[in-house]
C-alpha cells in the first residue's frame, strides 16, 4: 500500500517535454519504487546455496531425496543447454527467431516438476523448461521458430498446450479447462504461464475473475522476469504482481524465481489447493531474463549491464550446485556425466533441426477445417494447377 500512497503524494514534473504544454504537476509517468516496501520472497535456497527454513513451505519439499535434487539440477542444466543451442541455431540461420529462457530455469523446472501427469499446462512461448518437464521432445519446440509449422506437437499427448504468442490469451483457456476439470469432478489441476507484461492484458484480468467466481482449479504462474521487451514491470503495475490476486478474491504469493526448491514448494502448495477444491492461486516467480527478449531484440537500448550482473550472482543453476556440493549430494562424477549428457543433447537438437524438412507446399491448405470446406478444395486445386505449370516448363 505504501507504494501507492507515497507515490501519489510526490508528483514529479515529466522530463524533457519539448512542447511542454501537456506536462502538468499531475503528469507522473514513472512509478518510483520505495525502498523498504519490497515484499518478502519465499526462499528456501539462498543465492549462496544455503538451505533456509521456511515454516509454511518446507513441508512441501520435506521428503525430497538427494536423487531428486540432482534431478532438478540436471533438468536445469539440460534446459539451459538446449536453450543455448537454439540461440546459436538462430544465429546460424537455422531458426528464424528464438525466445531464450536463460535465467528462468528454476522458475520453469521448479513449477514444471510440481505438476502431476494428469495436470494440464498452458504455456506462453518461452516455457521450454516446462515443456522439458512434461516430456515434450525439445526438437518439437523448434518447428515454429524455424518456420516449418505454427505449433508442432499434440497438446494432449503430454497435457502441454501449444505455445501462445498472443499475450495473455492462454490464461482464459486454462481457466475454462479448469472449469471443465471441476465439472468432471476430477482432481487434476491446471497451470497457466504468463509474463509480468501479460498481467496488463484484459484477458488475464478476466481469467482472474472467472477462476475466482467458478472456483476453478487453476494456478496462475507469472514469471516476472522484470521486462516486457523494453518496458520494466513498473510500466505494467503499481503494486507487486502477486498482490493483484487479492482484489479478485484468491491468494497470491511471491517466490524467489531463481530458487528451484522454493518454486517447487510454492507451486506444489498452489496445485494442492487447486486439487483440494480451494480454487485459484497466483504465484509470482520473481526472476530475471538474462538475455534479450528474443533474438530480434536489442536490450542495450533500454537497460544497462549492471542489472544483469547483479542477477548473475543469483543464478539458479549455480545456487543449486553450491548446495549439492556443500551437502555432499553430488560428486564430481555426476557433474562430469551431466556435462557429457548436455553436449549430447546439444548435438541431438542441432541434428534434429537441420534434418527438419520444409513443409510440403500443400500444407498451406491443411487443417484449417476439421470437416473440410469447398472453397479450400477449389483453391487447393488452383494451386496444384499453378504448381504443375512449372513442372511442365521443367521447373520445380
Amino acid at each position, binding site marked *: 500500500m505504501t507504494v501507492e500512497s507515497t507515490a501519489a503524494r510526490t508528483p514529479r514534473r515529466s*522530463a524533457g517535454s*519539448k*512542447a511542454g504544454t501537456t506536462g502538468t504537476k499531475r503528469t507522473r*509517468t514513472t512509478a518510483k519504487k520505495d525502498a523498504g516496501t519490497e515484499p518478502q520472497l519465499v526462499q528456501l535456497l539462498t543465492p549462496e546455496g544455503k538451505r533456509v527454513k521456511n515454516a509454511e513451505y518446507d513441508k512441501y519439499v520435506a521428503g525430497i531425496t538427494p536423487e531428486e535434487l540432482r534431478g532438478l539440477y540436471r533438468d536445469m542444466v539440460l534446459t539451459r543447454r538446449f536453450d543455448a543451442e537454439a540461440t546459436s541455431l538462430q544465429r546460424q540461420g537455422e531458426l528464424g527467431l528464438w525466445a531464450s529462457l536463460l535465467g528462468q530455469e528454476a522458475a520453469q523446472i521448479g513449477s514444471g516438476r510440481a505438476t502431476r501427469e494428469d495436470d494440464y499446462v498452458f504455456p506462453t512461448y518461452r516455457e521450454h523448461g516446462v515443456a522439458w518437464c512434461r516430456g515434450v521432445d525439445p526438437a518439437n519446440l523448434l518447428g*515454429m521458430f524455424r518456420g516449418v509449422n505454427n505449433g508442432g506437437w499434440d497438446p494432449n499427448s503430454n497435457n502441454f498446450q501449444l505455445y501462445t504468442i*498472443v499475450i495473455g490469451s492462454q490464461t482464459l483457456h486454462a481457466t475454462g479447462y479448469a472449469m471443465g476439470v471441476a465439472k468432471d469432478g476430477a482432481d487434476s489441476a491446471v497451470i497457466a504461464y504468463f509474463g509480468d507484461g501479460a498481467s496488463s492484458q484484459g484477458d488475464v484480468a478476466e481469467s482472474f475473475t472467472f477462476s475466482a467466481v467458478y472456483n476453478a482449479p487453476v494456478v496462475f504462474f507469472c514469471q516476472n522476469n522484470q521486462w516486457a521487451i523494453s518496458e520494466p514491470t513498473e510500466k505494467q503495475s503499481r503494486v507487486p504482481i502477486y498482490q493483484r490476486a487479492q482484489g479478485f478474491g484468491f491468494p497470491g504469493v511471491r517466490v524467489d524465481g531463481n530458487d528451484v526448491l522454493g518454486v517447487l514448494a510454492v507451486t506444489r502448495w498452489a496445485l494442492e489447493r487447486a486439487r483440494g477444491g480451494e480454487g485459484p492461486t497466483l504465484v509470482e516467480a520473481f526472476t530475471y531474463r538474462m538475455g534479450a527478449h528474443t533474438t530480434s531484440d536489442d536490450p542495450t537500448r533500454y537497460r544497462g549491464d549492471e542489472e544483469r550482473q547483479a542477477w548473475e550472482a543469483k543464478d539458479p543453476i549455480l545456487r543449486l550446485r553450491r548446495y549439492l556440493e556443500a551437502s555432499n549430494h553430488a560428486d564430481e562424477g555426476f557433474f562430469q556425466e551431466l556435462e557429457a549428457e548436455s553436449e549430447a543433447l546439444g548435438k541431438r537438437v542441432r541434428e534434429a533441426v537441420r534434418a527438419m524438412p520444409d513443409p510440403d507446399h500443400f500444407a498451406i491448405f491443411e487443417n484449417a477445417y476439421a470437416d473440410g470446406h469447398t472453397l479450400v478444395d477449389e*483453391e487447393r486445386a488452383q494451386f496444384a494447377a499453378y504448381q504443375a505449370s512449372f513442372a511442365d516448363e521443367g521447373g520445380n
Partner: protein
Amino acid sequence: MADKMALAKAINESLRRALESDPKVLIMGEDVGKLGGVFRVTDGLQKDFGESRVIDTPLAESGIVGTAIGLALRGYRPVVEIQFDGFVFPAYDQIVTQLAKMHARSLGKVKLPVVVRIPYGGGIGAVEHHSESPEALFAHVAGLKIVSPSNASDAYWMMQQAIQSDDPVIFFEPKRRYWDKGEVNAEAIPGPLHKAQVVREGTDLTLAAYGPMVKLCQEVADAAAEEGKNLEVLDLRSVSPLDFDSIQASVEKTRRLVVVHEAPVFFGSGAEIAARITERCFYHLEAPVLRVGGYHAPYPPARLEEEYLPNLDRVLDAVDRSLAY
C-alpha cells in the same frame, strides 16, 4: 529539398513534425519510448518530446485504444502503435464498437482524431500473428478510414494527413517495405489522402494494389513490358474510402483489371473492387476483374509464405488470363 530516406524513417520524421507542430499530438504504444518501437519507427521521439508526449503503455491493446479514445474526447490527437497486425484483435472491440461509431452516435458532436498504426503484411519470415493483412476486417466497418502507403513520400505525407483528419484512421504500414528508400519532399503540397495514384501509365491492363503489393506490381509491369505488354499500375493508397473514380478512369482506358493484395482473396478488398468496377464499367471490360491474394488458409509458417503470398509469377499468370479473354 527532397531527402532520400527509408519508409520507416519517413514515418518517424512525419511523427516528429506532428509532435512539433501540435502539442495535442501524442504517441502511445508498447515499447515506443526508449526502444523506439520494435521497428524503430518512433526512434528518438521520447528522448526529444518526453514521456508525457511519447508514452510507453502497459501491454494491453484494448487499453491502448480505449484510453486513446478518452484522450481524444479530451482534445488530444493520439497516434497509437499496435506492435504487429495479429495483436490488434484485443483492441478490435474498442475500434469497432467505440472508435468507429462515436461520431455518428453523438450526432456529429464528438470527433475522434485517433490514428491506429499497424505494421502489417508478410514476407519477413516471422512467426505466426506477425504477418497478417486484416484491412478488410476494418474496411467493413463504417466510421473508420483505412489507408496504406507504399513508399516513403506517401508514408510521410499520409501520416501528416491522417493525424490531421478528424476521423479515426487505421494506418496500415507495409512492414516489409520499411527499409525501402525513397525521396521525401517535406515542402511539397501533397495530394488528397484518399486519392489513388497512377504510378505507371499503361494501355493494356490495370494492376491495382496498395501498400506492400505496389512495388510487386511495378516489377510485374516491368516484366510484362519485356513481353511487349503495356500495363498501368495504380497505387490505391486508401482502402476506405476507395477511389473508384480513379480505378474506373484507368479501366475505361485499359479495359482490364487485376487487383493484387496480400490478404485472403475471399471477402477481401479485391472482391469489393471487382463488384463495383463491374457495375461501373460493365461495357468497357474485356475480361472479368481478376484477383490475386492470399488463400483461405491461416497465414502459413515462414517457410511456406513464399507460396502463399502473391509473387511475380502469380500476378503475371493473372495478367495472362485476363489478356486471354
